[in-house]
């Protein structure tokens, strides 16, 4: 029954390690007090990506047509339905949650086990929800930026969210753990293949890749928590007010 948990445990261990590294961290950016340790883990993750994940994803990209990659991504996305619908429910977004249920039913049947996505065409859009966002929605602050080994950019709130969500991967309860492993691996490689160009571009465009990723992650999560709503007056002023209006 612990089948779905393996990567949740990896995660928890990761979080503990990270928090223990707390004392050793150098003072730095106020949103990133653990920068010293984070940079080292980030470096490690980048190497894993450079030498394992990206090459494998590239190989997959050359043999699998875009349509196959998209279908596979649809399939795994469809299986995440309990996470999306559940977290919408936990945030009191009942309409969205109901739409997620409808979406799952349509795509699982008409969409042939979720490989196709007719629901989007019928107005049942894909929502992006997870437990980290639910915590954020109810006012839990993200806490310090945290880079987790193998997992990547995170923070204590989202790490807890990820661990909690892993229990909602329903199929893992019904199949042997090595199938879950294989499925998770396939999902990760396929997703990596879908963003080959975007990641390369971000690397090329950035001057400090670590800072670029940290900032992008922070902004992206804040946008997801607020469901892409507009920025506050203060944020807008900080970002868009010219220093000295001539």
């Amino acid at each position, binding site marked *: 029954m612990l089948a779905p948990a393996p990567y949740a445990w990896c995660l928890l261990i990761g979080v503990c390690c990270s928090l223990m590294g707390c004392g050793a961290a150098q003072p730095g950016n106020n949103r990133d007090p653990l920068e010293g340790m984070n940079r080292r883990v980030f470096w490690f993750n980048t190497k894993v990506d450079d030498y394992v994940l990206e090459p494998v994803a590239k190989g997959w990209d050359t043999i699998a047509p875009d349509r196959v990659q998209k279908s596979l991504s649809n399939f795994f996305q469809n299986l995440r339905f309990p996470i999306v619908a559940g977290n919408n429910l936990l945030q009191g977004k009942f309409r969205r949650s109901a739409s997620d249920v409808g979406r799952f039913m349509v795509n699982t049947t008409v969409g042939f086990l979720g490989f196709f996505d007719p629901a989007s065409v019928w107005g049942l859009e894909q929502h992006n929800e997870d437990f980290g966002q639910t915590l954020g929605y109810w006012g839990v602050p993200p806490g310090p930026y945290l880079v987790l080994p193998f997992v990547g950019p995170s923070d204590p709130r989202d790490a807890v969210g990820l661990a909690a969500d892993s229990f909602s991967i329903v199929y893992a309860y019904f199949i042997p753990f090595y199938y879950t492993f294989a499925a998770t691996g396939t999902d990760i490689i396929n997703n990596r293949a879908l963003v080959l160009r975007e990641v390369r571009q971000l690397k090329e465009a950035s001057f400090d890749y670590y800072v670029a990723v940290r900032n992008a992650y922070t902004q992206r999560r804040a946008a997801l928590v607020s469901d892409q709503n507009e920025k506050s007056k203060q944020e807008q002023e900080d*970002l868009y007010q010219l220093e000295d209006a001539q």
Partner: protein
Amino acid sequence: MSRKRWQLPSRSLVAVALAACMWGGLTRPAPAAEGPTAVVQATADAVVAVLADKNLSVEQRRHKVEDIVYAHFDFETLSRLVLARNWKDLSPEQQKTFVEEFKRHLSVTYGKNVETYNNEKAVVTGDRAEAQNDWTVKTKVIRPNADDILMDYRLRKEGTDWRVIDVTIEGVSLVANFRAQFQEIISRDGVTKLIDLLREKNAKGESLKS
């Protein structure tokens, strides 16, 4: 019978829309004839038309897209926002160099997308007035065989023209992202180093291209 049932909501919808327009017109200056939304839609359409033109070489397409984008982006404001309080520490000459090099950097890195264009289309999904008298136009890039991408453009009016001062991709603002990176480099190594770095990167990128 069913006709009548359908007319009612649509009529009230028109009334609400009209009221909203009037209210908007009363509380804030209405966008000029060539409003921000029209500017974004026209720019996107023009870019897509060039990208889809198979008679042009990659190089030609790149230049044409560059011309269209340059005409509608305000790189000086963009640069000033990216540098924030550091802008004042630059000499006028450094400021000019920075704007040019930063513009070149964006063009070199994002210009590569011209080669990989794969029938993506951009549609405007909404817009709203913002603080500082800016305007945000929300768009969605629709990609066959890939997820849609949400792209928001923030525009500011200069004279009579609305020009783009920031692009936010899936919630990530370009200005905020570059500002975070540049702040780190400036506080560590100074402004001169940043400009050198920009130059270096551009020279490398250009040589990689040809």
